[in-house]
């Protein structure tokens, strides 16, 4: 670059306010937001959905669309006010000096262009370098993002790559023009945990190597702790607390930050002795924000007449003004007061075995061609799965995409029939009975809660109608009036107001929809509920509430909960036993304590290491898995995990590559599928250690 070297802060945002203008009213999305990013620094922007963090990113790029406008404050990039720049100058900055990485990698790549052409386009456009030079740089960058066989990748189309590879390409594209500032908007939310860990590792490395400043937007506190130097917490359009990551995590000075940390499961939280504390109330809509402090109505420390008097400004906490908070009472609150233990619940006693699965297999035949048959291939979605689930028990099923957990759920529900093995519900075999042939009682007994709250309810039917329909199908109630009554009690059960019966799903928030989904699943008095990632799409503060609700209902109804998840923090918090799956195999099963402490299956070990934990006291052993999860269409021979296993060298010969390990007992109830000898397993060290306080 020909410009003189600039050594001030890369980005200075001062009292920025952004509003969107609709037909009805002005909607303030961001108010009085300030942050500074120094060269080489990574700043995290944390908040729940709708708090305005993505709008800040758009504001930096001066790209708010037709309805958005900056209504106050300034954005300075390398000392230049972005608002005064001409469209040409802005274009020169966007994608060149400021690069952005979005959540959905496929949406950021042009599906009709080869990767190489897309990468080369960036410097050719912005710097006018020759195609040969651009190609050389593309090759260099693809090597930097640790993709195998860069030449082949450059010739590939986006759809030929996996999600993790695509995100690496998006990062490579952002790095092509050597930007000064990288804005990452939830870059790993769409990826699996082990892939996420590798990408985060990569971003940190590249930040060090290129000296790029980063603005890291995320809702995941653990991820921010791992990647950032400083953090800015946002709530309802405002920054509420800003400071060094360690300071904010250990000595937070804003009630919202505190409430947020208390609502996420960290090691030590437990569903019976130390349950999560949910934030009361709902996130305010932009046009319904309260007078004074936005968090006031939900705050434990709220003082009427003071907190709701006037707009609160940022107040320094420490002398040098590095740590600031938007709380009037920050000096008065006793921040170290221990959390008032809410009623400790009694641990429920686990009952008799309800569901017994033995040697279950599900194979799919994939035909080459619908019309003329063609060569058939077999996809082994589930291989020799055996487990038992008892009454009142929570069995977590953990695994990443493609591990076969959804197929298992489908076979349990009867949407698919098993290819082999047995599933016994109360001793009766149901593995080959499709749902149409099951008795109403069996169908009502096994129900499901779905992952995506925005998809789980039929958008064109009222909430009450959907629950009543489930009651009709399950034969509950004799007439319409009885069913209506039962529907209202179900709404009470999931703690929703009864007026919600008349609402349409679009009038509900994500958490409320998920509650309706739970009410619907329990309509027929379900005894086994398969919960497929029921909280992963919800905001952290809502997650705690919905998780608690599930636990509450389970305690009352003695339900067997099969909790499918990839989030090990929440699994540790609520499950009694854990089953880890990889490529259709159960690689480890045991009680929560057995699975979360050594000896581990190598995959469990990697999984535990990959999950970001929002606790500064936790130290983790760093294990990054190479490569992606193999496709179930083409699984590796031998042990399914052998392609990524770091312990493989410890097994003599090529046993791992030739033979599928047998399931063996390590301790009563603790089984593992691995060739490692007991001796080596015994020497494994815990992945997660909590530093002494």
């Amino acid at each position, binding site marked *: 670059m020909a410009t003189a070297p600039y050594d001030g802060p890369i980005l200075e945002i001062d009292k920025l306010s952004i509003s969107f203008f609709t*037909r009805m009213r002005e909607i303030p999305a961001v108010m009085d937001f300030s942050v500074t990013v120094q060269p080489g620094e990574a700043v995290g922007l944390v908040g729940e959905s709708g708090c305005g963090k993505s709008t800040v990113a758009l504001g930096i790029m001066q790209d708010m669309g037709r309805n958005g406008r900056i209504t106050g404050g300034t954005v300075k990039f390398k000392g230049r006010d972005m608002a005064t720049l001409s469209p040409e100058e802005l274009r020169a900055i966007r994608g060149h000096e400021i690069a952005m990485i979005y959540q959905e990698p496929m949406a950021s790549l042009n599906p009709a262009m080869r990767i190489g052409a897309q990468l080369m386009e960036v410097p050719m456009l912005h710097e006018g370098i020759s195609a040969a030079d651009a190609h050389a740089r593309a090759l260099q960058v693809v090597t930097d993002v640790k993709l195998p066989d860069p030449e082949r990748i450059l010739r590939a189309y986006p759809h030929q790559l996996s999600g993790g590879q695509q995100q690496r390409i998006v990062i490579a594209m952002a790095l092509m023009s050597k930007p000064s500032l990288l804005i990452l908007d939830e870059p790993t939310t769409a990826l699996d945990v082990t892939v996420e860990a590798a990408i985060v590792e990569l971003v940190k490395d590249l930040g060090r190597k290129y000296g790029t400043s980063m603005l890291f937007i995320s809702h995941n506190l653990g991820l921010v702790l791992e990647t950032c130097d400083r953090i800015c917490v946002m709530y309802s359009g405002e920054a509420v607390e800003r400071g060094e990551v360690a300071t904010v995590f250990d000595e937070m000075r804003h009630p919202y930050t505190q409430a947020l940390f208390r609502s996420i499961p960290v090691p030590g939280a437990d569903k019976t002795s130390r349950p999560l504390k949910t934030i009361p109330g709902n996130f305010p809509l932009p046009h319904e924000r309260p007078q004074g402090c936005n968090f006031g109505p939900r705050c434990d420390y709220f003082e009427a007449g003071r907190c709701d008097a006037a707009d609160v400004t940022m107040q320094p906490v420490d002398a040098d003004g590095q740590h600031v908070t938007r709380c009037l009472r920050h000096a008065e609150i006793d921040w170290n007061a221990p959390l008032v233990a809410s009623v400790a619940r009694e641990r429920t006693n686990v009952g008799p075995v309800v569901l017994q699965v033995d040697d279950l297999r599900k194979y799919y035949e994939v035909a080459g061609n*619908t*019309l003329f048959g063609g060569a058939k291939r077999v996809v082994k979605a589930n291989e020799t799965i055996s487990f038992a689930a008892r009454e009142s028990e929570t069995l977590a099923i953990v695994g990443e995409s493609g591990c076969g957990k959804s197929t298992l759920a489908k076979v349990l*529900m*009867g*949407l698919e029939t098993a290819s082999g093995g047995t599933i016994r519900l109360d001793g009766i075999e149901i593995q080959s009975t499709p*749902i*149409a042939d*099951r008795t*109403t009682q069996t*169908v*009502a007994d096994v*129900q*499901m809660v*779905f*992952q*995506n709250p925005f*998809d*789980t*309810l*039929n*958008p*064109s*039917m009222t909430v009450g109608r959907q629950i009543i329909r*489930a009651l*009709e*199908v*399950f*034969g509950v109630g004799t007439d319409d009036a009885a069913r209506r009554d039962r529907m209202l009690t179900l709404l009470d059960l999931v703690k929703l107001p009864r007026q919600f019966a008349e609402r349409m799903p*679009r009038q509900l928030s994500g958490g409320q929809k998920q509650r309706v*989904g739970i009410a*619907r699943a329990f309509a*027929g008095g379900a005894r086994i509920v398969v919960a497929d990632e029921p909280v992963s799409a919800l905001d952290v503060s809502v997650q705690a509430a919905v998780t608690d609700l599930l636990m509450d209902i389970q305690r009352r109804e003695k339900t067997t909960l099969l909790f499918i998840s990839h989030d090990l923090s929440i699994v540790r918090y609520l499950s009694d036993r854990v089953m880890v799956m990889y490529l259709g195999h159960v690689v480890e099963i045991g009680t929560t304590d057995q699975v979360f402490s050594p000896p581990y299956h190598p995959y469990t070990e990697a999984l535990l290491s990959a999950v970001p934990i929002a606790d500064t006291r936790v130290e983790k052993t760093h294990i990054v898995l190479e490569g992606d999860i193999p496709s179930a269409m083409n699984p590796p021979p031998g042990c399914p995990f052998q392609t990524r296993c770091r312990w493989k060298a410890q097994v003599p010969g090529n046993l791992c590559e030739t033979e599928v390990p047998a399931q063996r007992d390590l301790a009563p109830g603790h089984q593992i599928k691995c060739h490692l000898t007991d001796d080596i397993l015994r020497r494994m060290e815990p992945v997660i250690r909590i530093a002494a306080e």
Partner: protein
Amino acid sequence: MEPLSTLEIIGRCLWQLAPVWVALAVTFALSIRFQRRLGLYGKLFDNPVGMIGFALVMFWVYAAVFAGGFGWLVTHDTLSQFSGMKNVAPGTPLARAPEGAYPYFLLGGDNLARDVWSRMLVGAWEVIKIAPFATLFAFMVGITLGLPAGYYGGRLDLVLSFLANLILAFPVILLFYLLVTPEIVETGIPTYMAAVLFLFPIIFAVVLINSRFHTQPAKRNLYVALALIIGGWLYLGIAWNADPLGIIIFPAGLLVVFVSVVFVNAPSVFRIVRGLTMDIKTRDYVAAAQTRGEGPWYVMLWEILPNARGPLIVDFCLRIGYTTILLGTLGFFGLGLSPESPDWGSTINEGRKLLSSYLHPALAPAFALLSLVLGLNLLADGLREESLKD
């Protein structure tokens, strides 16, 4: 009497349409007053393009109903011929006007000395009577076949899609000629086609009710019986022209028009519905319905179809427009409807023969056809735009 000046013609035409203006004003006033409670229809009034389209469409709907249904607006009988009025220019006074008759031909006279103005308005009735219903039948057929094709996929989809493509690949005009050729009509093919095509709405209604109420047999039986009785009666009347009560009379010519329109439009609807179904069936609420043991038809008709309504409503408006043009084409070739029918296609065709010397007899119906189809297209645009917003 002197011929009317251009301004006078326009003034008298507008005055003659007074009931339509009143009806339009009332419709718009009420709609805008209760806009927020009317869902998608209400949102249409936020959109200038949609509003213009809606106004054009409703103008012709009211004009058609008032002229054809009540006999208002028209100045003369559509079939009466007046001596000395052959091909006269617009605004010509009636020579030797009978007692009480309207003294002018507002838009002139046609080749058979009939009033162009009245024929244009009654022609609107012919169009409004047929186009929406024919389109509705096409939708019923398309939906009933498109849902299972998209939902089950596989062989069924393959066969149905192939048939749809086959029909779409056949030249439309040739198909019409074949259908109305007397020799073919004599073989009864159009009637048999009608017998099959018109069965779909009944199947649709019965399956719709059964899937929804099968858990309450008493209610189900009542509703299914009602649907079968009403559907069967309409079916006998329309498809076989054999209404036992003698209320429905369906001329053979009209049946052919109906059959052709349904036959040509259904495959396109089928493809749209099939595509939407394939998209929506992957949603969690569909899986939720399956896991509580709902039958496939409940899932298709009550979980998938209502959520495909947005694009279908838009397509419905567009398709009424195509059907209107199709009716014009049919009339233009003199297919189906009786030769003296005042429908726009036939009138344009008659006017065409003397186009170089007398422009006006063809101009009025052509303009009417254009404005109605334009209105429908604008309305569809408006609906599409508003349904995408939230």
